[in-house]
């Protein structure tokens, strides 16, 4: 029997009743909610890594001591890892990058651009 349910959508449905917001600015609370969801997913990933390490250790493939003491063996690995951090941080802080670009290069609104295009 196929699953008849769009479970991802259903899982996040709103319960009945107007949602209370506690902070003066609801936008802050939205960001908090998103941040907490990400915190949870980080904890989940962390637990998964812990599982992997323990299984690998149990199977005698490596020890967690080795993980603890691991350092990149060459420049290539160092670069790959640092590159990952750099990209990760850029993704998280995208909104700040864009506001800096905006400050450096004040832009027209899309309404203004629409008016411009209307004349093109």
């Amino acid at each position, binding site marked *: *029997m196929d*699953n008849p*349910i769009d479970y991802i959508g259903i899982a*996040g449905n709103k319960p009945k009743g107007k949602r209370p917001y*506690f*902070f003066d600015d609801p936008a802050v609370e939205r960001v908090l909610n998103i941040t907490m969801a990400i915190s949870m997913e980080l*904890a989940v990933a962390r637990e998964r890594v812990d599982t992997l390490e323990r299984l690998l250790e149990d199977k005698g493939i490596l020890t967690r001591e080795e993980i603890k003491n691991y350092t990149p063996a060459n420049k290539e690995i160092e670069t790959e890892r640092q590159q990952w951090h750099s990209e990760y941080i850029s993704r998280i802080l995208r909104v700040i990058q864009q506001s800096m670009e905006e400050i450096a290069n004040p832009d027209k609104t899309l309404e203004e651009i629409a008016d411009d295009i209307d004349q093109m």
Partner: protein
Amino acid sequence: MAAKNLPPTYDHIAKHEVFPETTHDERARYNFLANLNKHLAHVSQGNAVAFKNDVTPKFKEEHGRDFENKEELGDAMAKNLHYQTWSALRRCTMEMRQQAGRSMTYRQAAELTERVNKLNEGKDSLILNDEVSPPPYLLAVDNHLMPGSYHTELFDGDVSNAANYDGGLFVTTAGLLGKWSDGGGQAISQWVKENHPEFQPKRILDIGCGMGHNTLPIAKLFPDAEVIGIDTGRPMLRYGHARAMALGYENVKFMQVEASKMSFEDESFDWIQTTMFLHETGGKSIYNIMREIYRCLKPNGLTMHIEQPQYTDDMSLYEKWIRDWDAYNNSEPYWSKMHDIHPKELMEDCGFNGEYYMQIGAQAINDLDDGTQKADEPEDHGRSPIWNVFGAWKK
């Protein structure tokens, strides 16, 4: 590092044939949420400090007097940043718990239904009735933020929310209800057995039984009794019945019956129980239900009701107010209103003799407590399994 007060990991929860399958990451999500719930119980202690050191002095300075009612106090606290932060986090945690549980059960919705149907097929101990619909107080709100509440079926035979309820109680209470989430049912059945050994009930009714987690411990401790659980939520009844079958219970029945108009004969039960049910009813219905309980109870029969702690005159305004948090923000609105009724008066109004009224305190019997689940945790108002139990003998 001495580990203290850590919630048990999710894998300690007891499984049965219709229990939802969980993946590694789903269990990890629940582990995170159980820990977050515990952590927030500590954060909630800051509310009392903020109230005492910040909110109260400010109010007194402005108004030249103390708070006179809960509304005034609530308005002042609502402006406090610590309270705002705790509230926002707690609401968020409840929503995350629902989402985590529902994504887990709805992804396997079809399999759950198949497993439940297989166990229920051909059994006369599950009695559904199309004529019975959920009462208006259940349709008005999704209790404790579970979208669709107890009655919604997204397809024929859907039991996903019931499975979500079963799988998630452990998380919301950080494991304090035990591995079967039945600490309430265990507490009341043991209390009856120990305190009234002469009482030998033959027919027991559990009203608002849901998925039967608190019904089964009664059936277990009173194996010679016929135990009937009633509810209006069909998914809960189907799932609860299958769960009971999977666990080998032979003296329980699950019936779709509405508590305020029960189809049972007068004086047909020795014991009528409700567990965390009455606060999810309504202001008129609670009287109708109690009158029905009186009608269906045999002379010398017992009725007991496990509820949240009663608001008493010696309880501070602050405590009454903070205990109302879940009512409004975890969507259990009648919880707050019910505190305006004195349980003794409720029972007397519905026919019981006040002379035989009783009130006891109860704490969940937690079979998961390995000694690290210390009771020196701060009380998480509305979550800690510390209850008020009221009831009466029908004499």
